[in-house]
């Protein structure tokens, strides 16, 4: 028994060597590339975080959410307004903007969570647009209209450790992305993750096995929104300015593409999707005005050749066994 356990552990360490290699490469990246590319990789990190947050809603539960940027906007504006008006440090606002985005999601999604498929899709679009337009119209003079809010501080712990240059921001975002990934992998394997996947596969069956569908759907929205709020906080402190144009419908649909290009519900897939969306336009800068044209063609081609995404999620062992036995009985 003991022997079996040991080999198992040994296998685990070796099995994960590509991940360790990837982490090491990521750690030394800022020393070999210039500041511009460090910034590009920072935005890759932001997209990865947003993609992971949308992946909870879209990939795990299968709810169409095309207004996800709205939640990020709530997080970013919470950070911006509280920091510039009251001088609350950014690091304190990190959990606070997550809570405000999550609370907002809970508030607006409660009445609409029973809608199905495309109807939910248009409501989330509408919600995202309402948030953007409201921010643009400067309600009570706190959001600064289309100019946005500017002069946001850098994140810091006292005055000793200040995140104030590209390299530090790069490590900052990727540490958070890393922690999120660890959390999400655990979540996927938990009771909650299984309930989510069950709802995605068949809502009626899920409900009949005693899963509280409404609660789990709301939970997905709340968690996804909270993560998007965190991304909003980091984004605001990096750019030092937030304006409504950063949270348009176009950006929300790009997030949608990140999840689908990578592969629904697959964490490595989301990272690849985020890389595709954020790095692709950078590599093709030489094509100038044809850049987005090529980008669109690539999106269509990608879906034609790999409709399930680049790195689709592996089915679990039990599921695979079930499919195999089912196929076996059908054939013979």
């Amino acid at each position: 028994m003991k022997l079996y356990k040991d080999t198992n552990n040994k296998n685990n360490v070796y099995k994960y060597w590509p991940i360790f290699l990837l982490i090491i490469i990521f750690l030394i990246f800022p020393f070999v590339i210039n500041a511009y590319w460090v910034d590009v990789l920072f935005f890759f990190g932001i997209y990865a975080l947003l993609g992971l947050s949308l992946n909870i809603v879209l990939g795990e539960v299968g709810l169409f959410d095309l207004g996800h940027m709205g939640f990020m906007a709530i997080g970013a504006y919470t950070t911006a307004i509280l920091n510039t008006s009251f001088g609350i440090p950014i690091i304190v606002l990190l959990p606070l903007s997550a809570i405000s985005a999550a609370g907002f999601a809970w508030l607006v999604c409660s009445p609409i969570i029973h809608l199905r498929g495309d109807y939910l899709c248009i409501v989330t679009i509408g919600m995202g647009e309402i948030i953007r337009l409201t921010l643009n119209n400067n309600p009570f003079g706190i959001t600064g209209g289309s100019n946005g809010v500017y002069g946001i501080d850098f994140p810091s712990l006292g005055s000793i450790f200040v995140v104030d240059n590209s390299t530090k921001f790069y490590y900052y975002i990727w540490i958070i992305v890393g922690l999120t990934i660890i959390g999400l992998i655990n979540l996927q394997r938990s009771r909650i993750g299984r309930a989510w996947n069950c709802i995605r596969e068949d809502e009626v069956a899920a409900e009949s096995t005693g899963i509280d569908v409404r609660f789990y759907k709301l939970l997905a929205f709340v968690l996804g929104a909270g993560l998007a709020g965190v991304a909003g906080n980091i984004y605001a402190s990096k750019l030092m300015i937030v304006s409504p144009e950063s949270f348009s419908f176009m950006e929300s649909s790009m997030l949608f593409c990140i999840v689908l290009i990578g592969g629904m519900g697959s964490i490595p897939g989301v990272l690849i999707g985020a890389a595709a969306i954020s790095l692709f336009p950078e590599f093709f800068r030489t094509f100038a005005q044809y850049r987005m044209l090529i980008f669109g063609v690539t999106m269509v081609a990608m879906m034609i050749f790999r409709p399930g995404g680049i790195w689709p999620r592996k089915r679990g062992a039990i599921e695979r066994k079930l499919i195999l036995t089912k196929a076996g009985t059908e054939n013979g």
Partner: protein
Amino acid sequence: MKIILEQLLNGLTIGSFYALIALGYSMVYGVMKLINFAHGDLFALGSYLGYTLLVFGSTYVTATLGIWGGMIAAMLIAAIGIGIAGTLVERIAYRPIYSAGRLPAVVSALGASIVIQNGIMVVWGPRPQAYSSKIVASHVLNIGGIKITSIQILVLLISFILMGLLFYIVQKTTFGAAIRACALDRSTAALMGINIETIIFFIFALGPALGGMAGVMVGMYYRKITFVMGWNYGLKAFTATILGGIGNIPGAMLGGLLLGILEMIGSVYISTAYKDVFVFVILILVLIFRPTGLLGEKVAEKV
């Protein structure tokens, strides 16, 4: 009273644009269960096509048909062109992935939308174009103290004729019955001897053609066209589709007209800046109480 009537008329004009575009969304969705995100950009392409036709054709066509004849000719040619573009989009971007389910089609549709939008930018340039007064005739008429432009009359006339025609085709003809049969159940419709390929072809030609016509009319009404306007109108028209009940053709017409009027009411009685917020709030309220839209039928849950 006069102001209310004038605003109602303006709202109806904008609403008929939305309704024409919404019909394309609704027809495609009804048969394919697919949100054609490229539809808004096909509409913008129609607008640019009409512009070019009017500018370059003005010397020949306007001389023989007169300025009004030229405008209608441009509309018809743009409609044909966009119909062809619509079927091309279907062939290239959607047909290869029908078997893969609904979600890959969303990404493909967004990709097609980006391609069309940036294609317009590459061909016509990033700056807005204007339908000048040389190619578009417009007079302000005064009927019983209510001001109405001749373009408005043209727009309302043409869009109501088109909507009536489409309603007639879908509800009264054999071809329309085939479309409705496909919307109900595609595989059973195929078993009944309906050629699904033909239906899909016509759906993707007819919907964008209506959108293209709306594009030319928007150009005539507002004069200014931009290459990004497809997103805006597409989003509004999609909202209209959902408001009326997606996949439902009278619903799309009602939703579009209602949306235009709501927008006008919002901008007059609330504020211009918040008119879109008003529209979306109404949409969400409608969906909370009628989850399948105004005219949408209650769909039984499949178990």
